[in-house]
């Protein structure tokens, strides 16, 4: 079972983190995340199927996917890869930037794999940066400066 935590170091966007250890070498785990013939077998878990899974695994490449729930509902998902660094790093985000009503509303997902010999450590960071959140973060500057009681910053806050 994995734990889900909020990354306490980030203040201008919400990042949730999950980790897990797999009993398999890193190359195998990488294959499972980047080849449709493997992904369609496990994605969604027991009872789910994946009638469509096409992956063009390179920066700018598209991952087109349809996940089918046990009751037969289809969820179309489409992602674009932002970073691909075999076998340790894979970053993707929805092509519609999380505006879709279907499927989980994540923004950017980063998967990193760590070589632990016969095992692999999998870490996933899912970032949620809402448009209004980003705007606010820009106008406020970095939130941690608020607690420094900076004169200049207080002046800025008064003008907002």
């Amino acid at each position: 079972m994995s734990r889900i935590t909020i990354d306490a170091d980030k203040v201008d966007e919400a990042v949730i983190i999950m980790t897990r250890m797999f009993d398999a070498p890193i190359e195998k785990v990488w294959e499972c995340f980047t080849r449709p013939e493997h992904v369609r077998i496990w994605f969604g878990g027991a009872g789910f199927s994946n009638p469509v899974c096409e992956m063009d695994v390179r920066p700018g490449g598209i991952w087109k996917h349809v996940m089918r729930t046990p009751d037969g509902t289809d969820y179309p998902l489409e992602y674009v890869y932002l970073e691909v660094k075999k076998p340790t790093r894979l970053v993707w985000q929805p092509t519609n930037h999380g505006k879709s009503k279907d499927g989980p509303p994540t923004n950017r997902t980063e998967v990193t794999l760590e070589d632990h010999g016969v095992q692999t450590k999998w870490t996933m960071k899912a970032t949620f940066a809402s448009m209004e959140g980003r705007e606010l973060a820009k106008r406020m500057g970095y939130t941690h400066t608020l607690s420094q009681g900076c004169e200049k910053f207080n002046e800025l806050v008064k003008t907002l």
Partner: protein
Amino acid sequence: MPADRLSSTLFALADPTRRGILARLATGDATVKELAEPYDMSLAAVSKHLKVLEAAKLISRGREAQWRPCHLEAEPLQAVSEWLEEYRRFWDRSLDSLASYLKTMPDPPKAKRRRSKR
């Protein structure tokens, strides 16, 4: 929960000061002054945080915000908590399947430096 509502709630929760404010409000309503007390920051700065929390509908304030206390609204927190749980369950399920699959999956071809022809 609509995608952007969830994002703005998570953004609101991302900041430790705002989490602290919510924790305080969980024990009862409080004025801006009371909320600012534990922090080394101006009332204006705390007000900025409260605006974020208000935008995410995590707190409500009276019309005369200076006099009426801030109040914690549980519903968005509940919704986010449920969504996080759903998200975790999705990945747990998927990764459980992956773990089983890895046991039976044939080894990938030996990594010889070899460019695939396109």
